[in-house]
């Protein structure tokens, strides 16, 4: 495998889009623009190399179906933002980190290791009964009614930008 050169224009365009999407969704990017540009360059490199935007800080398998969880933004971003104030790469950070109220550090890997992922693939859960306990709590934005199923409500409602405390447990 070779390193595929990504042009400066491509990086700048991808950074601009990433920033727009982040702002629209209530997310915050790392304030170190050079760091962000190098991560974006890594995502673009992975997109060329593997055909999907795999996380630049994780080893992609080359099989998209095995790596959906690490396509940026990854499945682990929001829990990592909640627990550590940054995603695994530190591409996304919380407002507290952005404003310097919380230190930014390299964080532990939340994604299960290779062996566990393989074992999980072999034991795919079958459809559950509609009245079975929910795998995640459902949170409702009291401002706009946006619903999401996850461990914690998001920091900011992606639809109306209401803050976390405006969410209530719905199911």
């Amino acid at each position: 495998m070779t390193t595929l050169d990504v042009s400066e224009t491509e990086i700048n365009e991808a950074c601009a889009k990433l920033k727009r999407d982040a702002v629209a969704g209530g997310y915050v990017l790392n304030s170190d623009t050079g760091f962000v540009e190098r991560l974006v360059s890594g995502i673009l490199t992975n997109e060329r190399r593997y055909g999907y935007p795999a996380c630049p800080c994780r080893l992609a398998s080359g099989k998209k179906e095995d790596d959906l969880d690490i396509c940026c933004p990854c499945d682990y971003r929001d829990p990592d933002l909640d627990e550590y104030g940054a995603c695994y790469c530190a591409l996304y950070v919380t407002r507290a980190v952005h404003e310097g109220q919380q230190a930014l550090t390299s964080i532990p890997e939340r994604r299960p290791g290779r062996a566990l992922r393989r074992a999980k693939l072999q034991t795919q859960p079958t459809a559950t009964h509609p009245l079975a306990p929910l795998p995640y709590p459902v949170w409702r934005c009291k401002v706009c009614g946006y619903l999401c199923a996850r461990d914690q409500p998001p920091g900011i409602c992606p639809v109306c930008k209401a803050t976390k405390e405006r969410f209530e447990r719905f199911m």
Partner: protein
Amino acid sequence: MIVEHVNGKDKGNVMLYALSTCQWCAKTKVLLGELGVSFDYVFVDLLESQEQDETMDAIERVNPKGSFPTLVINGTRCIVGFREQEIREAFGG
């Protein structure tokens, strides 16, 4: 396997397993350079598939998550992630 070597003070066998696209890996590599330590590094994402698998097996023996960067000192001590303080202390920086 494409293992690169960086010259410096001999602090034992220092091996950095990294990804070419990972910025915490890049920071770790820069820090080792700053500390003037002699070390080897390999970009695991640039290896051919069989070599990559074998390298992952080696990494997982010291870091079961198989995450990056993984820094292995003398084949036994392992520092996972860009733990700046820990890395400085390990090399008396």
